[in-house]
Protein backbone atom coordinates (compact mmCIF):
# COMPACT_ATOMS: atom_id res chain seq x y z
CA UNK A 1 0.00 0.00 0.00
CA UNK A 2 1.39 3.38 -0.96
CA UNK A 3 0.31 6.79 0.11
CA UNK A 4 0.11 9.39 -2.62
CA UNK A 5 2.31 12.25 -1.57
CA UNK A 6 1.48 15.83 -2.51
CA UNK A 7 3.42 17.09 -5.47
CA UNK A 8 6.08 19.80 -5.17
CA UNK A 9 3.72 22.28 -6.90
CA UNK A 10 1.01 21.80 -4.30
CA UNK A 11 3.54 22.23 -1.53
CA UNK A 12 4.84 25.51 -2.93
CA UNK A 13 1.31 26.87 -3.41
CA UNK A 14 0.51 25.97 0.21
CA UNK A 15 3.66 27.79 1.34
CA UNK A 16 2.75 30.86 -0.69
CA UNK A 17 -0.80 30.87 0.73
CA UNK A 18 0.67 30.65 4.21
CA UNK A 19 3.04 33.55 3.48
CA UNK A 20 0.16 35.57 2.06
CA UNK A 21 -1.93 35.00 5.16
CA UNK A 22 0.88 36.03 7.46
CA UNK A 23 1.67 39.06 5.31
CA UNK A 24 -1.95 40.27 5.42
CA UNK A 25 -2.22 39.87 9.20
CA UNK A 26 1.20 41.47 9.69
CA UNK A 27 0.20 44.49 7.61
CA UNK A 28 -3.14 44.88 9.41
CA UNK A 29 -1.47 44.71 12.82
CA UNK A 30 1.22 47.15 11.70
CA UNK A 31 -1.43 49.62 10.49
CA UNK A 32 -3.27 49.28 13.81
CA UNK A 33 -0.05 49.94 15.73
CA UNK A 34 0.73 52.98 13.56
CA UNK A 35 -2.79 54.32 14.22
CA UNK A 36 -2.39 53.84 17.97
CA UNK A 37 0.96 55.66 17.86
CA UNK A 38 -0.39 58.51 15.75
CA UNK A 39 -3.47 58.86 17.99
CA UNK A 40 -1.23 59.21 21.02
CA UNK A 41 1.28 61.57 19.42
CA UNK A 42 -1.20 63.85 17.69
CA UNK A 43 -3.53 64.43 20.62
CA UNK A 44 -6.96 65.90 19.94
CA UNK A 45 -5.91 68.29 17.18
CA UNK A 46 -3.97 65.99 14.86
CA UNK A 47 -5.07 64.70 11.46
CA UNK A 48 -5.90 61.23 12.81
CA UNK A 49 -8.12 62.72 15.48
CA UNK A 50 -9.79 65.01 12.95
CA UNK A 51 -10.43 62.09 10.62
CA UNK A 52 -11.80 60.09 13.54
CA UNK A 53 -14.11 62.94 14.53
CA UNK A 54 -15.34 63.26 10.95
CA UNK A 55 -16.02 59.54 10.73
CA UNK A 56 -17.74 59.60 14.13
CA UNK A 57 -20.03 62.38 12.92
CA UNK A 58 -20.94 60.31 9.85
CA UNK A 59 -21.65 57.21 11.97
CA UNK A 60 -23.61 59.12 14.62
CA UNK A 61 -27.06 58.74 12.95
CA UNK A 62 -26.62 54.96 12.84
CA UNK A 63 -25.74 54.89 16.53
CA UNK A 64 -28.70 57.08 17.42
CA UNK A 65 -31.04 54.93 15.32
CA UNK A 66 -29.77 51.68 16.86
CA UNK A 67 -30.07 53.16 20.33
CA UNK A 68 -33.67 54.24 19.72
CA UNK A 69 -34.63 50.86 18.30
CA UNK A 70 -33.00 49.06 21.22
CA UNK A 71 -34.43 51.33 23.90
CA UNK A 72 -37.79 49.52 24.41
CA UNK A 73 -36.02 46.15 24.56
CA UNK A 74 -33.49 47.51 27.04
CA UNK A 75 -36.28 48.96 29.16
CA UNK A 76 -38.11 45.63 29.11
CA UNK A 77 -34.94 43.82 30.17
CA UNK A 78 -34.35 46.38 32.92
CA UNK A 79 -37.92 45.94 34.14
CA UNK A 80 -37.61 42.14 34.32
CA UNK A 81 -34.23 42.48 35.99
CA UNK A 82 -35.60 44.92 38.55
CA UNK A 83 -38.35 42.47 39.54
CA UNK A 84 -35.71 40.19 41.02
CA UNK A 85 -34.43 42.99 43.23
CA UNK A 86 -37.89 44.31 44.11
CA UNK A 87 -38.31 42.37 47.37
CA UNK A 88 -35.02 43.44 48.93
CA UNK A 89 -35.55 46.96 47.64
CA UNK A 90 -38.99 47.13 49.30
CA UNK A 91 -37.54 46.32 52.72
CA UNK A 92 -34.74 48.81 52.27
CA UNK A 93 -37.17 51.48 51.09
CA UNK A 94 -39.42 50.91 54.12
CA UNK A 95 -36.48 51.59 56.43
CA UNK A 96 -35.44 54.59 54.37
CA UNK A 97 -39.00 55.91 54.45
CA UNK A 98 -39.01 55.78 58.23
CA UNK A 99 -35.69 57.60 58.39
CA UNK A 100 -36.83 60.16 55.82
CA UNK A 101 -39.98 60.93 57.80
CA UNK A 102 -37.82 61.90 60.74
CA UNK A 103 -35.55 63.87 58.45
CA UNK A 104 -38.51 65.83 57.05
CA UNK A 105 -39.32 67.13 60.53
CA UNK A 106 -35.69 68.05 61.05
CA UNK A 107 -35.56 69.63 57.60
CA UNK A 108 -38.60 71.79 58.24
CA UNK A 109 -37.00 73.12 61.39
CA UNK A 110 -33.73 73.66 59.54
CA UNK A 111 -35.54 75.37 56.68
CA UNK A 112 -36.93 78.04 58.96
CA UNK A 113 -33.55 78.64 60.49
CA UNK A 114 -31.94 78.62 57.07
CA UNK A 115 -34.32 81.30 55.77
CA UNK A 116 -33.41 83.49 58.69
CA UNK A 117 -29.70 82.96 58.13
CA UNK A 118 -29.99 83.64 54.42
CA UNK A 119 -31.49 87.01 55.14
CA UNK A 120 -28.68 87.73 57.52
CA UNK A 121 -25.94 86.68 55.13
CA UNK A 122 -27.68 88.04 52.03
CA UNK A 123 -27.05 84.63 50.53
CA UNK A 124 -28.34 84.40 47.00
CA UNK A 125 -30.55 81.41 46.37
CA UNK A 126 -29.43 79.73 43.13
CA UNK A 127 -31.40 77.55 40.80
CA UNK A 128 -31.01 73.78 40.80
CA UNK A 129 -28.05 73.93 38.43
CA UNK A 130 -24.81 75.31 39.87
CA UNK A 131 -24.32 79.02 39.47
CA UNK A 132 -22.68 80.07 36.23
CA UNK A 133 -23.52 76.89 34.35
CA UNK A 134 -26.12 75.87 31.83
CA UNK A 135 -27.23 72.29 31.36
CA UNK A 136 -26.88 70.96 27.83
CA UNK A 137 -29.06 67.86 27.44
CA UNK A 138 -27.47 65.06 25.44
CA UNK A 139 -28.53 61.50 24.67
CA UNK A 140 -26.14 58.66 25.44
CA UNK A 141 -25.44 57.06 22.09
CA UNK A 142 -22.82 54.44 22.91
CA UNK A 143 -20.96 52.76 25.70
CA UNK A 144 -17.52 51.29 25.06
CA UNK A 145 -17.54 47.66 26.10
CA UNK A 146 -15.28 45.97 28.60
CA UNK A 147 -14.35 46.31 32.22
CA UNK A 148 -11.50 48.66 31.30
CA UNK A 149 -13.69 51.25 29.62
CA UNK A 150 -15.83 53.15 32.11
CA UNK A 151 -17.05 55.74 29.62
CA UNK A 152 -20.02 56.78 27.53
CA UNK A 153 -20.37 58.72 24.29
CA UNK A 154 -23.00 61.48 24.18
CA UNK A 155 -24.65 63.19 21.22
CA UNK A 156 -23.24 66.67 21.85
CA UNK A 157 -19.85 67.97 20.86
CA UNK A 158 -17.68 70.95 20.02
CA UNK A 159 -20.39 72.55 17.86
CA UNK A 160 -22.73 72.54 20.86
CA UNK A 161 -20.21 74.26 23.11
CA UNK A 162 -18.89 71.16 24.88
CA UNK A 163 -15.20 71.17 25.86
CA UNK A 164 -12.83 68.77 27.57
CA UNK A 165 -13.26 68.62 31.39
CA UNK A 166 -16.86 69.89 31.37
CA UNK A 167 -18.77 68.20 34.22
CA UNK A 168 -21.59 65.82 33.30
CA UNK A 169 -24.59 65.18 35.56
CA UNK A 170 -28.04 63.61 35.63
CA UNK A 171 -31.01 64.56 37.77
CA UNK A 172 -29.67 62.05 40.33
CA UNK A 173 -26.14 63.39 40.60
CA UNK A 174 -22.66 63.63 39.16
CA UNK A 175 -21.75 61.25 36.34
CA UNK A 176 -18.24 62.28 35.24
CA UNK A 177 -16.36 64.68 33.00
CA UNK A 178 -15.88 65.10 29.27
CA UNK A 179 -12.59 63.45 28.33
CA UNK A 180 -12.65 63.93 24.58
CA UNK A 181 -14.68 66.13 22.24
CA UNK A 182 -15.65 65.44 18.64
CA UNK A 183 -17.56 67.72 16.30
CA UNK A 184 -20.96 66.39 17.31
CA UNK A 185 -20.12 63.76 19.91
CA UNK A 186 -18.15 63.69 23.15
CA UNK A 187 -16.67 60.94 25.28
CA UNK A 188 -17.46 61.15 28.99
CA UNK A 189 -15.20 59.53 31.57
CA UNK A 190 -17.47 58.11 34.27
CA UNK A 191 -16.81 58.47 38.00
CA UNK A 192 -16.32 54.71 38.07
CA UNK A 193 -13.26 55.00 35.81
CA UNK A 194 -9.91 54.55 37.54
CA UNK A 195 -8.69 57.88 36.16
CA UNK A 196 -11.54 59.88 37.71
CA UNK A 197 -10.95 61.87 40.90
CA UNK A 198 -13.33 64.41 42.42
CA UNK A 199 -12.76 66.61 45.46
CA UNK A 200 -15.74 65.97 47.69
CA UNK A 201 -17.13 66.64 51.14
CA UNK A 202 -19.55 64.94 53.46
CA UNK A 203 -22.63 67.17 53.42
CA UNK A 204 -23.39 66.45 57.07
CA UNK A 205 -19.96 66.53 58.71
CA UNK A 206 -17.88 68.49 56.19
CA UNK A 207 -15.25 65.73 56.13
CA UNK A 208 -13.26 66.23 52.92
CA UNK A 209 -11.76 63.63 50.62
CA UNK A 210 -11.36 62.56 47.01
CA UNK A 211 -13.96 60.37 45.33
CA UNK A 212 -12.35 57.67 43.19
CA UNK A 213 -13.43 54.44 41.54
CA UNK A 214 -14.04 51.73 44.11
CA UNK A 215 -12.10 48.50 44.35
CA UNK A 216 -14.95 46.22 45.30
CA UNK A 217 -18.18 45.25 43.59
CA UNK A 218 -20.30 46.36 46.60
CA UNK A 219 -19.68 50.06 46.11
CA UNK A 220 -18.39 51.40 42.81
CA UNK A 221 -16.89 54.51 44.47
CA UNK A 222 -14.72 55.26 47.49
CA UNK A 223 -13.99 58.48 49.35
CA UNK A 224 -10.22 58.52 49.58
CA UNK A 225 -7.84 60.60 51.73
CA UNK A 226 -10.30 61.14 54.57
CA UNK A 227 -8.27 61.77 57.75
CA UNK A 228 -8.90 59.29 60.55
CA UNK A 229 -10.09 62.00 62.89
CA UNK A 230 -12.77 63.16 60.42
CA UNK A 231 -16.31 61.98 61.09
CA UNK A 232 -18.14 60.14 58.31
CA UNK A 233 -21.28 58.09 58.93
CA UNK A 234 -23.13 55.50 56.90
CA UNK A 235 -25.98 57.19 55.04
CA UNK A 236 -24.27 60.58 54.75
CA UNK A 237 -24.53 62.34 51.41
CA UNK A 238 -21.31 63.14 49.56
CA UNK A 239 -21.23 66.23 47.33
CA UNK A 240 -18.60 67.94 45.23
CA UNK A 241 -16.33 70.29 47.18
CA UNK A 242 -15.91 72.78 44.33
CA UNK A 243 -12.88 74.49 45.84
CA UNK A 244 -11.33 77.60 44.36
CA UNK A 245 -7.95 79.25 44.85
CA UNK A 246 -6.55 82.37 43.17
CA UNK A 247 -4.71 80.25 40.57
CA UNK A 248 -6.61 76.99 40.31
CA UNK A 249 -10.12 75.73 40.79
CA UNK A 250 -11.87 72.40 40.86
CA UNK A 251 -13.36 71.14 37.59
CA UNK A 252 -16.64 70.52 39.38
CA UNK A 253 -18.98 73.21 40.71
CA UNK A 254 -19.74 73.08 44.39
CA UNK A 255 -22.59 71.04 45.82
CA UNK A 256 -23.38 68.49 43.11
CA UNK A 257 -24.62 65.28 44.71
CA UNK A 258 -22.35 62.30 44.17
CA UNK A 259 -23.60 59.45 46.34
CA UNK A 260 -24.38 58.01 49.73
CA UNK A 261 -21.89 56.48 52.17
CA UNK A 262 -22.47 52.71 52.40
CA UNK A 263 -19.64 51.72 54.73
CA UNK A 264 -16.96 53.30 56.88
CA UNK A 265 -13.93 51.41 58.10
CA UNK A 266 -10.90 52.30 60.16
CA UNK A 267 -7.92 50.07 60.86
CA UNK A 268 -4.75 50.75 62.81
CA UNK A 269 -2.56 50.21 59.78
CA UNK A 270 -4.44 52.47 57.38
CA UNK A 271 -3.48 56.12 57.12
CA UNK A 272 -6.97 57.17 56.14
CA UNK A 273 -10.55 56.16 56.84
CA UNK A 274 -11.95 53.67 54.32
CA UNK A 275 -15.23 55.07 53.01
CA UNK A 276 -17.32 53.37 50.35
CA UNK A 277 -19.85 55.40 48.40
CA UNK A 278 -22.80 54.27 46.31
CA UNK A 279 -23.35 56.82 43.51
CA UNK A 280 -26.83 58.32 43.13
CA UNK A 281 -26.59 58.15 39.34
CA UNK A 282 -26.94 54.64 37.95
CA UNK A 283 -23.91 54.44 35.65
CA UNK A 284 -25.06 51.20 34.05
CA UNK A 285 -28.31 52.54 32.60
CA UNK A 286 -27.62 56.11 31.55
CA UNK A 287 -29.95 57.23 28.77
CA UNK A 288 -29.50 61.00 28.81
CA UNK A 289 -27.22 63.40 30.67
CA UNK A 290 -26.67 67.11 31.18
CA UNK A 291 -23.31 68.56 30.23
CA UNK A 292 -22.63 71.58 32.43
CA UNK A 293 -21.43 74.30 30.10
CA UNK A 294 -20.23 77.60 31.62
CA UNK A 295 -22.89 80.24 30.99
CA UNK A 296 -20.39 82.71 29.48
CA UNK A 297 -19.28 80.11 26.92
CA UNK A 298 -22.79 79.05 25.93
CA UNK A 299 -23.81 82.69 25.63
CA UNK A 300 -20.86 83.39 23.38
Amino acid at each position, binding site marked *: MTVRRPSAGKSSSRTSAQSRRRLVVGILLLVALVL*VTLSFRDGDDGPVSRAQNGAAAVLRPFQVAADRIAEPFRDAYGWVDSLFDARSDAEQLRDENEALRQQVVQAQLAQRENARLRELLQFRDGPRLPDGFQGLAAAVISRPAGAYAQAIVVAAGWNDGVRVDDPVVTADGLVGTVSRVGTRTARVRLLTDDQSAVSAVDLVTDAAGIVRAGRGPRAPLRLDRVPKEAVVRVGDTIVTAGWESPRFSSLYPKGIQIGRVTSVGRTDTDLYTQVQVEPFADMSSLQAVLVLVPADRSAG
Partner: protein
Amino acid sequence: MSVALRIAPLVFVAAVLQVSAIAGARILGAEPDLLLVTVVAVGLVAGSIAGAGAGFAAGLLVDVMTLGVLGTTAIILTPAGYWAGRYGETTGRGRTYAPPLAAFAVSLAAGLGGVAIHFLLGQPVSAREALVTLLPSAILAAVLVLPIVRLCRVVIAPQQQYEPARRVELV
Protein backbone atom coordinates in the same frame (compact mmCIF):
# COMPACT_ATOMS: atom_id res chain seq x y z
CA MET B 1 -21.11 39.62 -4.90
CA SER B 2 -17.65 39.30 -3.39
CA VAL B 3 -17.14 37.87 0.07
CA ALA B 4 -15.88 41.22 1.40
CA LEU B 5 -19.12 42.93 0.36
CA ARG B 6 -21.14 40.25 2.11
CA ILE B 7 -19.08 40.50 5.29
CA ALA B 8 -19.07 44.33 5.48
CA PRO B 9 -22.75 44.82 6.43
CA LEU B 10 -22.53 42.03 8.99
CA VAL B 11 -19.57 43.65 10.69
CA PHE B 12 -21.08 47.12 10.47
CA VAL B 13 -24.40 46.11 12.03
CA ALA B 14 -22.62 44.13 14.76
CA ALA B 15 -20.36 47.10 15.58
CA VAL B 16 -23.25 49.59 15.75
CA LEU B 17 -25.31 47.23 17.93
CA GLN B 18 -22.32 46.53 20.18
CA VAL B 19 -21.60 50.16 21.02
CA SER B 20 -25.18 51.39 21.25
CA ALA B 21 -27.81 48.75 21.86
CA ILE B 22 -26.15 46.05 23.93
CA ALA B 23 -23.09 47.71 25.44
CA GLY B 24 -23.23 47.81 29.20
CA ALA B 25 -25.81 45.01 29.29
CA ARG B 26 -25.08 42.18 31.68
CA ILE B 27 -26.54 38.71 31.54
CA LEU B 28 -25.78 36.72 34.71
CA GLY B 29 -22.58 38.67 35.25
CA ALA B 30 -21.43 38.28 31.66
CA GLU B 31 -20.99 41.07 29.13
CA PRO B 32 -22.24 40.03 25.69
CA ASP B 33 -19.65 40.84 23.02
CA LEU B 34 -21.58 40.51 19.79
CA LEU B 35 -18.78 42.03 17.75
CA LEU B 36 -16.11 39.58 18.89
CA VAL B 37 -18.48 36.70 18.28
CA THR B 38 -19.26 38.00 14.78
CA VAL B 39 -15.56 38.30 13.97
CA VAL B 40 -14.99 34.72 15.16
CA ALA B 41 -17.95 33.51 13.10
CA VAL B 42 -16.69 35.31 9.99
CA GLY B 43 -13.26 33.74 10.50
CA LEU B 44 -14.74 30.27 10.86
CA VAL B 45 -17.00 30.58 7.82
CA ALA B 46 -14.88 32.66 5.43
CA GLY B 47 -11.32 31.84 6.48
CA SER B 48 -8.39 33.43 8.23
CA ILE B 49 -7.74 36.39 5.90
CA ALA B 50 -11.42 37.37 5.91
CA GLY B 51 -11.48 36.93 9.69
CA ALA B 52 -8.44 39.16 10.16
CA GLY B 53 -9.88 41.79 7.81
CA ALA B 54 -13.25 41.70 9.57
CA GLY B 55 -11.51 42.04 12.95
CA PHE B 56 -9.47 45.00 11.76
CA ALA B 57 -12.47 46.81 10.27
CA ALA B 58 -14.63 46.05 13.30
CA GLY B 59 -11.96 47.35 15.67
CA LEU B 60 -11.58 50.61 13.75
CA LEU B 61 -15.35 51.12 13.63
CA VAL B 62 -15.68 50.67 17.39
CA ASP B 63 -12.79 53.01 18.14
CA VAL B 64 -14.26 55.66 15.83
CA MET B 65 -17.76 55.40 17.29
CA THR B 66 -16.61 55.45 20.91
CA LEU B 67 -13.94 58.14 20.33
CA GLY B 68 -11.39 55.75 21.80
CA VAL B 69 -7.69 55.52 20.94
CA LEU B 70 -7.77 54.53 17.26
CA GLY B 71 -6.34 51.06 16.64
CA THR B 72 -6.53 49.54 20.13
CA THR B 73 -9.59 47.40 19.45
CA ALA B 74 -8.25 46.49 16.00
CA ILE B 75 -5.07 45.11 17.60
CA ILE B 76 -7.23 42.72 19.62
CA LEU B 77 -9.83 41.77 17.02
CA THR B 78 -7.44 41.25 14.05
CA PRO B 79 -5.59 38.27 15.60
CA ALA B 80 -8.90 37.04 17.04
CA GLY B 81 -10.43 36.80 13.55
CA TYR B 82 -7.25 35.36 12.08
CA TRP B 83 -6.91 32.67 14.74
CA ALA B 84 -10.59 31.68 14.45
CA GLY B 85 -10.12 31.43 10.68
CA ARG B 86 -7.00 29.27 10.95
CA TYR B 87 -8.73 27.04 13.46
CA GLY B 88 -11.70 26.69 11.13
CA GLU B 89 -9.42 25.87 8.19
CA THR B 90 -7.39 23.25 10.05
CA THR B 91 -8.22 21.44 13.31
CA GLY B 92 -11.77 22.70 13.64
CA ARG B 93 -12.79 22.00 10.05
CA GLY B 94 -16.09 20.15 9.96
CA ARG B 95 -16.28 19.79 13.75
CA THR B 96 -19.63 20.60 15.34
CA TYR B 97 -18.02 21.89 18.52
CA ALA B 98 -15.58 24.18 16.67
CA PRO B 99 -17.64 27.43 16.82
CA PRO B 100 -18.36 27.36 20.60
CA LEU B 101 -14.83 26.23 21.39
CA ALA B 102 -13.28 28.93 19.18
CA ALA B 103 -15.57 31.65 20.62
CA PHE B 104 -14.79 30.56 24.17
CA ALA B 105 -11.02 30.53 23.61
CA VAL B 106 -10.95 33.78 21.62
CA SER B 107 -13.13 35.54 24.19
CA LEU B 108 -10.74 34.55 26.99
CA ALA B 109 -7.68 35.57 24.95
CA ALA B 110 -9.26 38.85 23.84
CA GLY B 111 -10.20 39.71 27.43
CA LEU B 112 -6.67 39.13 28.66
CA GLY B 113 -5.24 40.89 25.59
CA GLY B 114 -7.49 43.89 26.21
CA VAL B 115 -6.25 44.23 29.78
CA ALA B 116 -2.63 43.87 28.64
CA ILE B 117 -2.94 46.47 25.86
CA HIS B 118 -4.65 49.05 28.04
CA PHE B 119 -2.00 48.45 30.69
CA LEU B 120 0.76 48.95 28.09
CA LEU B 121 -0.88 52.18 26.92
CA GLY B 122 -0.73 53.50 30.47
CA GLN B 123 -4.48 53.40 31.02
CA PRO B 124 -5.40 52.18 34.50
CA VAL B 125 -7.09 48.81 34.34
CA SER B 126 -8.90 47.02 37.11
CA ALA B 127 -7.58 43.50 36.48
CA ARG B 128 -9.96 42.15 39.09
CA GLU B 129 -13.03 43.59 37.34
CA ALA B 130 -11.82 42.31 33.98
CA LEU B 131 -10.99 38.84 35.27
CA VAL B 132 -14.27 38.45 37.16
CA THR B 133 -16.30 38.90 33.96
CA LEU B 134 -13.87 36.94 31.78
CA LEU B 135 -15.18 33.40 32.30
CA PRO B 136 -18.93 34.16 32.20
CA SER B 137 -18.40 36.34 29.13
CA ALA B 138 -16.50 33.54 27.39
CA ILE B 139 -19.30 31.08 28.15
CA LEU B 140 -21.88 33.57 26.84
CA ALA B 141 -19.77 34.03 23.68
CA ALA B 142 -19.73 30.25 23.18
CA VAL B 143 -23.55 30.25 23.30
CA LEU B 144 -24.00 33.37 21.15
CA VAL B 145 -21.72 32.12 18.39
CA LEU B 146 -24.05 29.29 17.30
CA PRO B 147 -26.81 31.45 15.76
CA ILE B 148 -24.23 33.97 14.48
CA VAL B 149 -22.28 31.26 12.63
CA ARG B 150 -25.53 30.07 11.10
CA LEU B 151 -26.33 33.64 10.01
CA CYS B 152 -22.83 34.06 8.58
CA ARG B 153 -23.19 30.86 6.56
CA VAL B 154 -26.46 32.14 5.09
CA VAL B 155 -25.05 35.60 4.29
CA ILE B 156 -21.45 34.82 3.31
CA ALA B 157 -21.59 31.39 1.72
CA PRO B 158 -25.22 30.51 0.92
CA GLN B 159 -24.36 27.97 -1.81
CA GLN B 160 -21.55 26.37 0.14
CA GLN B 161 -22.66 23.42 2.23
CA TYR B 162 -20.93 22.42 5.40
CA GLU B 163 -18.31 19.94 4.19
CA PRO B 164 -16.95 17.21 6.39
CA ALA B 165 -13.14 16.75 6.51
CA ARG B 166 -11.76 15.18 3.37
CA ARG B 167 -10.56 11.62 3.61
CA VAL B 168 -6.96 10.67 2.87
CA GLU B 169 -6.78 8.97 -0.49
CA LEU B 170 -4.91 5.68 -0.41
CA VAL B 171 -3.77 3.93 -3.61
